[in-house]
């Protein structure tokens, strides 16, 4: 899949901007065009956080997306706000740990992952965001998992390189959880 217009939304502190940055960086490593746009503001941990990522083979026009074809919603207010805006056929990745209702729309490809539980199973609650990114890439392989792994390796400084592995494991778990809900989805592999 060559292009994606993604909105990631939830609480500040859930790693939303980081998730978006790693996806954007992965796209760039593949030679694609990509934009990363934070909903910047007087935000703080616990406030709302939104990040828009556009990936394309051609130069990107608008970094602003009104009608996303992919969504990651990490809490209930984000589900309520963004579900109605998704394009028909969009993929909706739901953080089931924080979203206590099913989607209302029937025209979306929905994957619900208990990201907190998956991350707890790894003894690393901070990687719930990577679980959800893995789920997204299982449903919409806009970049290869290997590219996200390279983006992570490029992000962490030498004394924190050990964090790459746990993040990649979280990606894989998320992808596997999504694959179980997506019969047609290719099983995710990480080099």
């Amino acid at each position, binding site marked *: 899949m060559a292009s994606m217009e993604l909105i990631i939304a939830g609480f500040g502190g859930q790693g939303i901007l980081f998730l978006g940055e790693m996806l954007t960086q992965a796209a*760039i490593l593949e*030679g694609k065009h990509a934009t990363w*746009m934070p909903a*910047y503001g007087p935000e703080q941990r616990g406030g709302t956080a939104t990040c828009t990522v556009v990936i394309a083979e051609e130069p990107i*026009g608008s970094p*602003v997306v*009104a009608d996303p074809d992919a969504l990651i919603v990490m809490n209930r207010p984000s589900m309520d706000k963004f579900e109605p805006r998704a394009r028909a056929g969009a993929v909706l990745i739901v953080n089931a740990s924080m979203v206590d209702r099913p989607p209302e729309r029937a025209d979306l490809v929905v994957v619900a992952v208990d990201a907190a539980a998956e991350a707890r199973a790894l003894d690393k609650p901070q990687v719930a965001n990577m679980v959800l990114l893995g789920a997204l890439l299982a449903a919409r392989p806009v970049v290869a998992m290997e590219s996200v792994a390279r983006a992570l390796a490029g992000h962490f400084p030498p004394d924190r390189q050990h964090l790459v592995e746990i993040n990649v494991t979280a990606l894989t778990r998320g992808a596997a959880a999504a694959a179980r809900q997506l019969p047609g989805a290719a099983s995710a592999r990480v080099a």
Partner: protein
Amino acid sequence: MATALTDRVLMKGNEAIAEAAIRAGVQAYFGYPITPQSEISEYMAAHLPEHGGAFLQAESEVAAINMVYGAAGAGARVMTSTSSPGISLMQEGLSYIVGSELPCVIINVMRGGPGLGNIAPSQADYFQATKSAGHGDGRNLVLAPSTIQEAADLTLLAFDLADRYRNPAMVLTDGITGQMMEPVAFREGPSLPREVPAWATTGAGDGPVRLINSIYLEPEALEAHNQRLQEKYRRMQVEVRSEAYLMDDAVVAVAAYGLTARIARTAVDRARAKGIRAGLLRPITVYPFPTQACADAAGQVAGILTVEMSAGQMVEDVRLAVEGRTPVRFYGRLGGVVPTPPEVLAQIERLLSEVKAR
């Protein structure tokens, strides 16, 4: 020179502007923090001293622009950056710099106004940037990047143009372009070899007396000075730059600059997908304004839609260029609200149905 896409680095617009300025050989940066451009100061504080330049956080924007004035007068390649309310504070100093004919680069990462407004993106400082440089009859050269790559490229160009015309060059951008990230490739090396200009007040003591000033008490002398400045602004018109996107067979054109132009570009693509022959006319310089490009478009299309994050500022320049030859309509969002591609598409369709009904 083509750069492989994979050689690009992912950067915020603010960071890319700062890095481009360092590569342009900026020798001194003076500024005062304000959202949404504080990353420029932050980047300069971290990296400019490594390159032998001076970073100084001033006590206010008024102080910062006067430090720019002083350093420019001493012949240094110099810049400041701020956001809308800060530009208002800098108007007096800017006027002195224009009157004294000194080169400098000023970055305005526009936010919502008037007053303290908010920290969301805006284009409501267009009049302030393009119609004057503070009080008096002065002008800024004004460059309006649409992507992070262009923000870097136009920052480099701004230093060249400032030197060439001994005039402030402003990069006029917005909060989203400052805060968003996109891959960017930097041109290598400083753009122009930088020597201390012959007119600079270096305090050397052994040369001819040099005076940098903007005071001309005799009206005839000040008029002559103004005539020289006006002649310079006429020469600056050759620096006009614009981009035409899908304009060759367009029956309707969108005119927009900066962030709004790339939003409009997506709307134009969507219009084309629906069989509407839409095009985009994008000013890259907003002073000098691409009057001829607008006039040429007016002879071709059935209508022009101008889109801005303002109540309608650039649209006045579009109308002046078009001179009534084709309808010019306006769509704007205010106060930090950003227009979306579907909104712009709806306005394109509305304009089209309006001109068809005529």
